[in-house]
């Protein structure tokens, strides 16, 4: 299998947290579910190192943005599920707004052609 990670965009620092929060906006998931969802919606283009999801989840939990509980997975195994807290939802909204503003600014700047 050819190593194609070089052609994939790198995640900006801090964006992983926001993406995870977004993933959970549709309801509780376990870690693998989050990885799969990110893979699906980004067409596998945003391939993150999957292991790094977990420290991020623990970090979010510590900040009170997500909550975890042990439940049963679709295969009947014990699995740890995460869901957004109220605080997490608010945070996601803020981050999304901020991102959109930032992205449009960058787009605007990049779109400006030099006056020849």
């Amino acid at each position, binding site marked *: 299998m050819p190593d194609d990670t070089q052609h994939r965009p790198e995640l900006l620092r801090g964006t992983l947290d926001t993406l995870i929060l977004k993933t959970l906006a549709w309801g509780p998931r376990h870690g693998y579910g989050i990885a799969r969802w990110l893979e699906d919606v980004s067409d596998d283009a945003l391939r993150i190192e999957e292991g790094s999801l977990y420290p991020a989840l623990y970090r979010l939990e*510590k900040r009170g943005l997500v909550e975890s509980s042990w439940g049963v997975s679709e295969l009947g195994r014990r699995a740890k599920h995460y869901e957004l807290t109220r605080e997490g939802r608010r945070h996601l909204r803020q981050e999304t707004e901020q991102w959109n503003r930032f992205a449009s600014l960058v787009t605007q700047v990049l779109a400006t052609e030099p006056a020849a």
Partner: protein
Amino acid sequence: MKRSNKSPLWRRAVSSEVDEELEMHLEMRTREYEAQGLSPDEARRKARRRFGDLDRHAAQCRREAGGRNRRWRWSAWLDELRQDLRFTLRQLRRRSAMAALVVGMLALGIGLTGTVAGMMHQALWQPLPYAEPERLLTIWEEQISRGKGINVVGPANFVAFRDAAETIDSMAGFISVSANVAGGEGPPVRAPFRWVTAGYFDVLGVPPEVGRTFTPEDSVREDRGVVIISHRLWQSRFGGRDDIVGQLLPVDGREREIVGVMPPHVALDMGPTRAPYGDAADLWGPLPVSDEWATARGRWLMVVARLADGTSAEDANAEIAGIMERQVQAMPAFNTGWIAHAVPLADNLREPLRLPMAALAGAVLIVLLIVCINASSLLLSRNLGRLDELSLRRALGAGRSRLGRQLLAEGVLISALAAALGWLLASRLRPLAAAVLPENLAASAAPSPGWVLAATLGLTLIVVLLCAWLPSLPALGKVARRVQSRSLGGTQSQHRLRAALVFAQTALALVLLVGSALMLQTVHRLLSVDPGFDSDGVVSFGVGLPRGTEPSRMQTFYGDLIERVAALPGVESVGAIDHVPMAGAGSATSFRALDRAEPDEGDWPVADIRTVDGEAFEALGVELKAGRAFDSSDGTDQAIGSVVISRLLADELWPDGDAVGQTLLVNWGDAERTRRIVGIVGDVYLVAPGIQPRGTIYYPQAQEPRALMNIVLETGRGVESMAPELRSVVADLDPTLPIFDLVTVRSLLRGTLADQEFLSRVITAFAALAFLLSVLGIYGVTALSVTESRREIGLRMALGARPLEVVGLFVRRIATWTAGALVVGLAAAVLAARAARDLFYEVEATDPAVLAGVAILVAAAALVAAVIPARRAARVDPSLTLRQE
């Protein structure tokens, strides 16, 4: 990844949740790949690759989760510690030579210090084996004119103290002698025997192991005497039989009834005035205090007392001194010029041990300190050598405390290893110490195992502080600065620190070297003292007739014995003396010369008294200076007795050299009998080569017979070969008499030097170690600075500096440090030596030869240690080093 179920318990709490979660992720991903058609192995590998570093992510999770609950945090911490230790082990394995060096050095330091601490506990701190030992006192008299020195107590004064002192709860007196013991198993032996007054065991507060102690009736019984025996005698002669009470024991030929057995270790060792036949008593007999004691003269009683409740040793001392003043009024002829003291029993025993123990402790602490400095500076330069790695890890997010812990982990691991090894070493040294210690130190200072362990653990803490925590600080500080300034820091301050450590080491080593030189000088001077007798080829042994033997029998017995020993092959001359020189103290008394006015009470001169028989002077090689030795004309029947005096006494009293023929009155034996001086002999050191002899008066055995004499014979044959013949000669005369203390006089002489020789050997060994380590330190620091200054050297050489100048550069630096260390070290050494001056004989703390010799030795060694690596600097190729930068 399969985690073992056998993982230690403390890890489970954290790991189980995190691991379970991550494991599930990997499993699901693997299954997915398998579904795509990959083999299970390949699927698993690919899932792992996609996941990234499992251990790192898991560890991060645990850290993030930390603080959620206490147990979690604690095990996360332990988990990290485990990682740190594993990391450290890997690092150490990579640098095993250095690690082994540091561990070995520290183990040596810890082991030695632990052993000495164990000895100190045994010698100085362990409570004595009596009830409330801190309340026990001893009472001594002292003759002011004789200056220092304590004296046994007169019986009249004892009675006065006992009856009048209110600060004293109870008091007993005793006399230490020895007696021939037969009965039970084995041949007759000479055993230490103690006559004790009523209540002696109650004063000590020791109940008997079997039977009873003495009752007042025991001392007035007329049918037969009673005796209490030691645990040791009970075991050795009676096999520990149950019906020991009531058995009859022949003591000095008379049967005594055994009424009790004392447990081990109750023999009361009084310290300075030891019984001459070993300190532990094997027999105790009742000593009645008769009415005559109140008026008796002479001083021959050792006194032990128990403080009354609520009084202190100072109170008792003041009261005893006061009672003694009244005794001077009551018996002026006997007591004028005398005072009395009460001294805590423990002080009595421990005072003589304090200085040697302090010297030993000081020496071993210096060694430990040097070892720690060495280890610390090795670890320090190692930590600083890891700066790049540490800065990287800090930049990658490792917290300062985590980095600190990693640095600490190495030191702690090394210290722990060293402590374990050190303890092992100490437990090996313990029996060894007991074996190499001189006899009297071994009895009182064989290290106690519990204390060795406790001290080792305590030392480990200190070592961790010095060798783990301290060297981690500069590296952490540098990392912090470097991360802030993003620059590669210089090495200047690191140099300074290392150089300062080497400097401290050298100064400390100097103290030990000076101490060792002074001790070696002391032993050398003591060995070169002419003791006034010939110790080579002289054998001595003791024979004691029973107490109460007729004087005429004493005379004929020793006369016959000397005659028979003289007839043995290889014996050149034979005599007898009551106390062999160097075998402990003997008797002394006051006297006056009859050709001058009677001195005031208490101003009578004092002389040592010895009784001799046969050719004692000739056998011992004591020189006859004037007149004659004793001969058959000095018999019992003479109205005027004969004495031989030592030259010191003769010169003092009759400086014109006309001592022979003069007459004396001596407070000894028949005090009314006039004694004429028939000869003068050379001065003999009686106690030890370090103790100046005083005037000595010799009596002939014929006129003042003694029951116990030591036969001295000059022979080319050794002790071993003489022993059977000597035994059979004595047995032929009287089969009930054991012979004892069969030794060469040479070994007695060496025995008196044993403490000093032991100390000088130990301190010299310590000093050699310290010296070696500090020379290595100087070498190391020079070598390091040469390596680090290559660029500077290259530059200088490119600018025209000659190789010699470059070498000089480094040597000058070391020379400055060494000169400083010499000044500080020598000053400290002189101070330490002053404090310990009582250990030295005829050598001053400021002995110029010693100080200069040590200074030259250290300076020369430092120079060599600096020149060798500095010469490498001169070989630096300037073009090469400059281009490298």
